[in-house]
Structure formats: C-alpha cells, structure tokens
C-alpha cells in the first residue's frame, strides 16, 4: 500500500471514530434558582414515623396500618432506606437530655450535582431543574453503578426480582408536586419537622432558627454546602457525624471523575492524536523493516 492510500484509510478511520455528539454536552445544565427542597429539623421530630407510612402509601408499597407505626421497638436497630421503604426514621441518644432521643428521617438528599446522575451509564437518573432527582425504569439496565457512586448510600435495588428489578429511592413525590400537592411525608408530618419550600428560603429559615436559638442548634446546615449542595437540608442539636451522616466535603459529588472523563475525551482530540501517533509509528517501522 502506498502512502496516499495509507493516509486516506487512516483519515477515514479517524472520522469514523468520532461519533457526532457530545459537543453540546459542554452546555452546562442550568439548575433553577427557585428549586424546591425540604428542611428537616431533627430537634423537633418526635419519631412518630407517619412519614414512613405516607411514603409507602404514596408509592404503592405494601405497608402495615398506620396504628402499627407507633411501635417504638423498630428503633432498636438502625435502619436504612431500601427497596421496601424509601424513607426511614432512626433514633439516636441525646447527650443533652437522655429522656428525649433524637429522631432523624433519612431519604435521598436530592443533590444539586448528583453522583448517581453523573455515573449512570444510560442517563436513567435525571436531576430536574426544579430539584428532584428521579429514576427512569425504561432506561435502567440494572448495573448498580449509582449505588457505588452515591455518597449517602441511598439507591436500593430489588435483588429478589428476576425480571425488571428496580432502583428504588425517594423521588421527592415528583408526581404529587406536579399536581400542586406537597410531598407525602411533608403533608402528614404532625410536628412541622419537615418544611417544604424554595431551597434558598429554607436556608434563610434555617439560619434564622440557628440565630434565635444558638443553644438548641449546632451552627451547621447539613446539605447547604455538602457535595455541592443538596435539596434536602438538615438542622440538628449536635454534630451530624453522631447522627450517622457521612462526613463529606463541599466538592460536587461526582468529584474529579468528570474532569478526568472530559480531559481524556476533550473533543476526542486525545484518542485521535494517539491513533495518529500509533499510525505514524507503524508506518515508519514498516518501511524500515521493508528496506532491510
């Protein structure tokens, strides 16, 4: 093969290697300034677990009748949200008053820059500009990489299903929100532990509460800066690590992964350059061995 043919074929191979895409991936996803969130004030929560019941009802999950939820024995073990319960309340010892344990509701935090969305191989998880992070059953292939990626270890998988196992996690009652209703847990909460509203307003409210009662609250709104900010925000009377929250920095949850990915694939230049380089080496060496 002569040089011209070689170059021609190499050029064709290069263009074939560029899928027509991703140039628009650089357009940064714009999140809504007025996105919604929920403020969870763990100093108010009484651990009635009505939110757990309402959540199951709203998501058509099987549940015991509401009366059974007053059973306090469940607090003996720490629980995590799973494929049968998208939110759970755990109880912790209160060093300030051992008679008044601290109750903490756990569910998806709906990160502003979610690791699960960045990780998902097929984009089955979406961050809506209004706040919620939701999962799409029609796309998911069940690889469970979102579970590896989530810094709060929230997504759960239906391991017992042979067909169409689902990734289960709080969807912020996005369907109810579209109908103008409150999320089920917020609606049923009898103590105003849960405050639904615009995230920026919730931060104001939280700051105000801390300012007015500095003894009641520790000066930290969990979720304001953690992993780049989350839609759900928490207030507590003590250090969050004592309430089983992971200690996280303020860098966005996907971390350096996206910089690495976009570095390696910056407009496909590095792979194409490598291809060209190897092609050149091959060409030179082949000629050399031909001359021998």
């Amino acid at each position, binding site marked *: 093969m002569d040089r011209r043919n070689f170059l021609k074929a190499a050029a064709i191979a290069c263009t074939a290697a560029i899928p027509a895409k991703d140039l628009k991936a650089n357009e940064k996803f714009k999140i809504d300034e007025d996105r919604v969130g929920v403020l969870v004030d763990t100093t108010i929560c009484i651990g009635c677990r009505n939110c757990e019941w309402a959540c199951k009802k709203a998501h058509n999950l099987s549940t015991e009748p509401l009366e059974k939820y007053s059973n306090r024995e469940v607090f003996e073990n720490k629980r995590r949200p799973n494929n049968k319960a998208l939110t759970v309340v755990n109880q912790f010892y209160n060093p300030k008053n051992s008679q008044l344990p601290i109750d903490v509701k756990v569910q998806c935090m709906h990160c502003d820059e979610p690791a699960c969305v960045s*990780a998902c191989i097929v984009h089955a998880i979406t961050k809506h500009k209004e706040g919620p992070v939701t999962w799409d059953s029609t796309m998911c*292939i069940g690889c469970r990489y979102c579970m590896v990626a989530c810094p709060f270890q929230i997504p759960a998988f239906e391991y017992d299903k042979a067909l169409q196992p689902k990734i289960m996690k709080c969807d912020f009652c996005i369907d109810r929100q579209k109908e103008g209703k409150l999320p089920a847990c917020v609606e049923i909460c009898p103590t105003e532990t849960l405050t639904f509203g615009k995230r920026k307003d919730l931060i104001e409210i939280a700051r105000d509460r801390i300012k007015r009662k500095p003894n009641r609250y520790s000066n930290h709104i969990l979720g304001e800066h953690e992993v780049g900010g989350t839609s759900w925000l928490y207030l507590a009377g003590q250090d969050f690590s004592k309430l089983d929250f992971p200690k996280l920095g303020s860098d966005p949850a996907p971390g350096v992964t996206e910089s690495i990915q976009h570095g390696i694939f910056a407009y496909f230049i590095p792979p194409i350059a490598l291809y060209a380089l*190897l092609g050149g080496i091959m060409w030179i060496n082949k000629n050399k061995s031909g001359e021998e």
Partner: protein
Amino acid sequence: MDFLMKPTLLKDKKFFTPGVIILILLAINAIVFLAFRFFSGLGSMTNLNNQNPWGIWIAIDVASGVALAAGGFTSAALGHIIHKNEYEVILRPALLTAMLGYTFVALGVFIDLGRYYYIWHPLVMWNGSSPLFEVGICVIIYVTVLYIEFIPIVCERFIGKVKLIASLSFLNKPIDSLLRFLDRSLSKTMFIFIIAGVVLSTLHQSSLGTLMVIAGPKMHPLWQTPILPLLFLLSAIGVGFPMIIFESLIASRSFGLKAEMHVLSKLGRMVGPILGIYLAFKIGDMFIRGTFVYLTEINTQSIMFVIEMLVGVIVPLRMFFSEKVLNSKLLLFFASTLTVIGVMLNRINTFLVAYSPPYALKSYFPSVGEISVTVGFIAILVLIYRVIVMNLPVISLPDKKLVHKTKYEIIGGSK
C-alpha cells in the same frame, strides 16, 4: 532456532485429559448456579446487597478479566506497530486470549446486570460523563475489533477447504468466496483495526480505574486517587506480557510442546522496566497524598495493600531483572504468575477491599454461587481455548519444510 515457526492446528492431540474433565465439571456447576440467578434474581445466589452492589463478578470477571486480556493490545503494539517480527509466534495466542477474555468480560457483565436484556441500551442511550459508559462502549467496539482481527486465521484454515455436510453442501461455494473476500479486504485494511484496538484498549483500561474514583470517601485512601486511571493503564500494560508468558508455558506443557523460551525471555526482559514505572507512580502517589500513614494501622485494607505491592509488584519486579529468572522456565513462570496474581489482587482490592460503604453491617464476601460462576467461566474459557487451538492455526510449531517467512506473515501486518 533451527526451523522456522508456523502456526499449526494441534489436531493430533487428545482433547479429553483428566484436567479437561475437571474443567467440564466446574463449567456445569456454574451453569446450575446461573439458573438460580436467572430464575430467582441476583439476591438468590449472591451476597450482594444495597451496601455492596458490586461483587467478584465485577472485580474478577470484568475488571481483572479486562486487565489480564491486556496481552492482546500490548503484543499487537509490539508485533504490529513497533513491528518486531521476532514476536510473531506469540501474536496469535495473545489475540485468541484477548478475544476469549473480552467475550467472557461481556458475559460477566451480562449476568451481573439486573436487567441483562437491556445490555444494548448504552449503544443508544449515551451519558458522556459516565466512565462506565466509556468502558462499555470501548469494550463493545474492542470485542468487535478482536473478532475482526481473528478472521484471517479462520480464512487461512478454511479457504479452499469448506466442506459442509451433504444437505448444506450447496453453501460451500458461497462461504468459500465470502472467506476469500474477507481475507482480501482485511489484508488491506487490517492496520486500521490493529491501531484502533490499541487506542481502544488504552482508553478503557484507564477508564476502568476512573470507575471507582466517583465512590469518593467510600474508598480507602490507599487506593482512592485521581491517578487511578493511570495506575490501571500502567498495571494493565505491565501484566500483558507476563500473562502471555503464563499461558504460553501452560499451553506448551499441556500439549507437550517445546516452550518458546527465546521469545518468552525477551518478553520478560521488558516487564521489569514497565513494572518499575508502575511502582514508581504508585509509591509517588502515596507520598504526594501522604497515604503511607494508613500503613501503620493494621487492618484488612493495609494488610491487603502490603500483600498486593510485595507479592504482586516488588517481588516479580526484582525477578524480571534477573538473568537467571529470564532464562529459567520455572522461575519465569513463577514471576509471571506473581504479576498476574498481583494485578488481580489490585483489581479486587480496588473494587471490593477498598470499598467500605458507610452503613454496611458486615463486609462483603462472595457466596458459593458467585465463586462457582467465576470459576466456571474461567473453566469454559480454557475449554474453548483448547478447542480452538486444536482446530485453528494459532500456536506456532517448527516447520521443517519452510524456507520463506512471508508465507505466514500476519495478514495486513505488512504490504
């Protein structure tokens, strides 16, 4: 070397040996467990849960599988791109290993996916920011490239010899002309696929490392580093030749052939420096991030890290620099085996040992079913390898009749 080497089918060898029968039993065992997986869900036979979503099927079948198939692209780079003719005898076995290795990586992914029947989704639903997407796409294309690279071997065997059973004999001619057509067109274009194979390999070997970066603080700092992709690429290149040596020595022993020591020790000579570069990056990274402090704690992670580095990198590194090792079949095999184990350990450590989810009640250990399937897949791979080398010209044997080398030059490798 007295005689020139020619890829030959080993059809006069016996297929069934005691070892082969054990492999068949292991394969059947895996298939039984797989039936549970497909009829009652992943939970029925694995120890996976919401805290540990990935187990040995990802760490061994997929991550280690990809790394250990690196012999395919490292040998292609050496033999075709740098164009060292003396390594020709290892090119076909390495290509076959890579082809089968990647096929089983794909199978490993398939059984691990909760919705395996949607395995094609990444082809049409793209997420450019996901390293898993990149790994997936690269592996799909690379498997295709490997099969294309293998076609000339099939052509060489069957052109002019297509003889189907009576009722299908009318197909003999069309198949023969198809093979001739493929052979002709590939001989002109093979270099495109060879280069593409090397590029695709560098891409996904490194992205496999990027996979775990997103787990952030859930990963033990001894392994969690932004240069994980570089470390994965370097260790994959490092294990490429040891893996070729490892399987070449096993194959020659199993078929009672003379080992290709002159080529293998040359290959071994290159391993030392590559492992040295890998070790330098690994230790440099440790010092830059100050993670060596974690070695003072005694726990599973620190012990596994020391074993991985000592047994899997430092000892083989020293061995590959010794003339005595390079010229001894036994010691060379030992050093290569250590490197292979080292890279496997590294992948298992990165994906499983280092990964400590925040709310796990107990740490993950694979179930009997998971181990059975992993072992069974390896058994099936070895069996298919055996069938292929007995029926297609893959392994080179000395040929007394040969005078010219051009006859069996890899098609597309030159003019």
